[in-house]
């Protein structure tokens, strides 16, 4: 846990006046942490970092009579106090893109806003980049915040074993005022191919949320694993249709570093962001 997050949890435990660093004054009350109640502790420690992302999904299919737009609201996890949010790519238009691939369909999340706590206005944000293979997308606030946001630290990760408790920290729909929700399950499997992940023991888990041990240590991020285009070939009718997996925190950190480096390059107008890369081949002799 970072020092800021630790301070936040202490303040919560003491029932301090401010709910958490960086939140508006009207943040929802969270119960005092109780060591005997892991759910309460988890919510107290990290619920503030589960944020709402509102956006308009714009879908364009050539020859279909124009754009189709609809509002969406998903949850993501703040992973950097400066305002970087990790979200499931499939929830940010990746699923629609996948279904429309090969048909020229274009799916673009637009008018993105991040809502923290009780905030109804939201702060403007942009989708920086995504990794469809890992089901990760990174959304960054446009303007640096005055106060740092509450965030989940993925750099210190726990590595649970088979059968150990996993806690998924999510939020309910706005109909239920977006209150935090904790799901409990166990590590059901630890496959190494196609990559190292944790598989929850029961199906139907939400993805796009952070996952913790029963002691509140960060395990990773729940993502939807779907086969790649090449993997789908030859699978026939019994093809693997996808599963919610937990990507280990270390993988999240590596992927984020790579993503942010690429985003920085793109902003500088690096050739890698355009069609022709710097490293062009010499003609074959």
């Amino acid at each position, binding site marked *: 846990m970072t020092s800021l997050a630790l301070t936040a949890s202490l303040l919560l435990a003491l029932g301090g006046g401010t709910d958490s660093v960086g939140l508006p004054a009207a943040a929802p009350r969270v119960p005092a942490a109780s060591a005997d109640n892991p759910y309460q502790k988890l919510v107290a420690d990290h619920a503030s970092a589960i944020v709402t992302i509102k956006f308009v999904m714009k879908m364009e299919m050539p020859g279909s009579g*124009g754009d189709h737009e609809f*509002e969406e609201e998903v949850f993501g996890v703040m992973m950097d106090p400066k305002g970087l949010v990790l979200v499931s790519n499939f929830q940010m238009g990746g699923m629609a*893109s996948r279904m429309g691939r090969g048909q020229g369909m*274009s*799916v673009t999340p637009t008018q993105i806003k991040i809502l923290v706590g009780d905030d109804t206005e939201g702060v403007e944000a942009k989708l920086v980049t*995504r990794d469809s293979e890992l089901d990760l997308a990174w959304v960054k606030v446009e303007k640096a915040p005055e106060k740092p946001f509450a965030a989940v630290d993925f750099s210190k990760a726990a590595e649970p074993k088979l059968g150990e408790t996993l806690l998924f920290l999510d939020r309910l729909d706005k109909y239920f005022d977006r209150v935090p929700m904790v799901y409990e399950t166990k590590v059901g499997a630890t496959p190494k191919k196609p990559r190292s992940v944790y598989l929850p023991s029961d199906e139907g888990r939400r993805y796009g949320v952070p996952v913790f041990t029963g002691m509140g240590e960060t395990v990773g991020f729940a993502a939807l694993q779907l086969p790649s285009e090449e993997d789908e070939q*030859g699978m026939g009718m019994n093809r693997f249709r996808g599963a919610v997996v937990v990507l280990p925190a270390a993988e999240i950190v590596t992927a984020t570093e790579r993503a942010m480096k690429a985003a920085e390059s793109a902003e500088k107008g690096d050739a890698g962001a355009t069609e022709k890369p710097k490293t062009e*081949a010499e003609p*074959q002799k």
Partner: protein
Amino acid sequence: MPLRTRAAAMLIASAGISVPCQSLTAQPPVTAESAVKLSEGATDTLLRDGLRNLISGARDKVFPSLVNISVITVNYYGGVERKGGGTGSGTIISKDGHVVTNAHVTSSGKKFKVTLADKSEISAELVGEDPQTDLAVLKLSAEDLKGRALPVAGFGDSDELAMGDYVIAMGSPYSLSRSITLGVVSNCERVFAGGNEEVGPIDYIDGQATGSYTRWIQHDALINPGNSGGPLVNLKGQIVGVNTRGGSGMGFASPSNMVKDIVAKLIAHGEVPRSQVGFSLKQIEKSGLKEGVLITSVIADAPAGKAGIKAGDVIVKMDGTPVTARFAEEIPALTRRIADTAIGGKIRLTVQRAGETKEFEVTTEKMLKDKGDETILRGWGLGAEDVTEAYARELRLTSRDGVLVTGVRGGSPPAHAEPSLQGGDIITTLDGKPLKNLAEIVERYKAIMAMEPIPEFLMIGVERRGKNQVTLIKPRPVKREDPPREVPKAWIGMETQPVLKDLARQLGHDGQTGFRVTRVYPKTLAAGSELKVGDVIVSLNNEKTAPKGMQDAGFLRRQIEKIRLEDGAKATLKVLRAGQPVDVTVPVERTRIGPEEARKDDNKDFELGVRELTFFDRDDNRWDDDVTGVMVTGAEPAGWAGLGGLFGGDLIQRIDSETITDLTSYRAAMEKITKAQSDRVTFVVLRGVRTFYKFVEPDWKPLVDKKKAEQVEKEKKEAR
């Protein structure tokens, strides 16, 4: 009389003409009487040739004036303007170039092109439409005609038609222009009654009820989509109907006597002025009544209601003349009689009510349009329509001021508003000020969107089912946004296929699985290495790459992606080549941008989507680096670009005199065209290996027809 001889006599008699028999024998012209005296052999020939001559004679009289009509339509759904196209048929009926067709052919039409018998294409304008009878008149452009004489077809008397008469349907079924089919009249007075056995509209055209006044000519000359608006012709070569409906081997034509009347009114007034009194009629069959016609409903604030007429009254006399409608077929004549009364004229009605006879005098009013003009405020994603008198009456609105919301585009400012706007809302105020009509909201919309900066909030007042509400929308310009890019990862410029055990053995690799190189992309770092097509990769950086099944097809790619991308990064591959292990070092580069991630542009005027050219486009098409341009992702079929023949997959290389190298140059060229409001734009596109020249004709007309807007205001004043 032998059947065939008799048949020949009937054929000639029904045509009402004499058939010269010079082609058969040197005999005087054959009449019905003389036909029976012919020998049997000659009668067979006469029967066959006679009918053929009659058909060809009728055909030749009308065919030269038969036209094909192409229409570009604009409709509005869900706050979005959607263009479409359609075709139909028509007939030139005047030397001035008037063409009669169906209203459902011209409905929502913004542009009309008419193809004449000599295949020349002439643009046309709409003179007027009458949805109630589904008839319309176009006028050919004098400029395009350049003074040439036009063939004109004449009308016959549809009242003279009898069941069994031969009729010819002419038109363009399924856009197959200039076709004819032959049939007989099946019924001369067909009407359509709904489930409640009341003769009423059979359909709606642009929201307007149609079919209430028509007694159709039912026939079995085969007609199909595309025949609409084409003539139904008798064997004298006269138009006896306009084909309007059909299916399942049946056709229904509007009778020419009605068509003549409607066409004359459309040409004179641009519309068909009709009277209404505000009640519905029903035939008395099954009612127990012996005479009269039943009034089933009365609109309270319409003339009949104001005069004191009530539902349940039975009209027995109209202007002193007894009237009875025992069957449904008799209703259209009565409704037409009322409709044809002069607007503001008086009709005396004698009714029976609860055993008493009562007299009423009803002053007619002008028949109200059900639907008003409509448009889209594109930047707001809002469909808006004028509030008609009919709509105001239906919803019991106290005023016609305001505009009706017909649709709201998902994700648009009105959709985001809290509360959001909905179809059916009446916008009564905009920015706190009262709103009169469609033309006004268009002007105010344009002014707001031209402001610098555009206001953050706009207050809108709406009437929603009797409730007065206010909401705020945040108007904003249409922003161009690009789809998010994937994180670039390590990549080797090749494609591979998994080699499983059986294939490995056949390749002589002793069952050692791996990944066989199927392509080495030219102009990549891999192309400069020793890697070859056919190599089977068995390890990457000393880690085995051994697929167990097809589910591992992506395994090698994932392993490559784990390599840290930095300048000079390399991968060491152990490959099997001709059965022998070989080490190959391949430089690693970053993944190339795919079409899904390419930057895009969407031109709303031309309804044309393009994106930047990618590495994979070049490779797929085998285009060298000197090939530049932007790829078309799609063109709406009835949009300007679509009509000009641009398709998805085209590479736009030049626009007019501007060479297109990338999105920036493309956008600059399109902005220049928009500023200049060019009449014609030439796109030079590369499609595969061929170059095409595409000529696009933009139509830069304003959103609302000012003349129609003035007409709306005039009607409002008259109604007050």
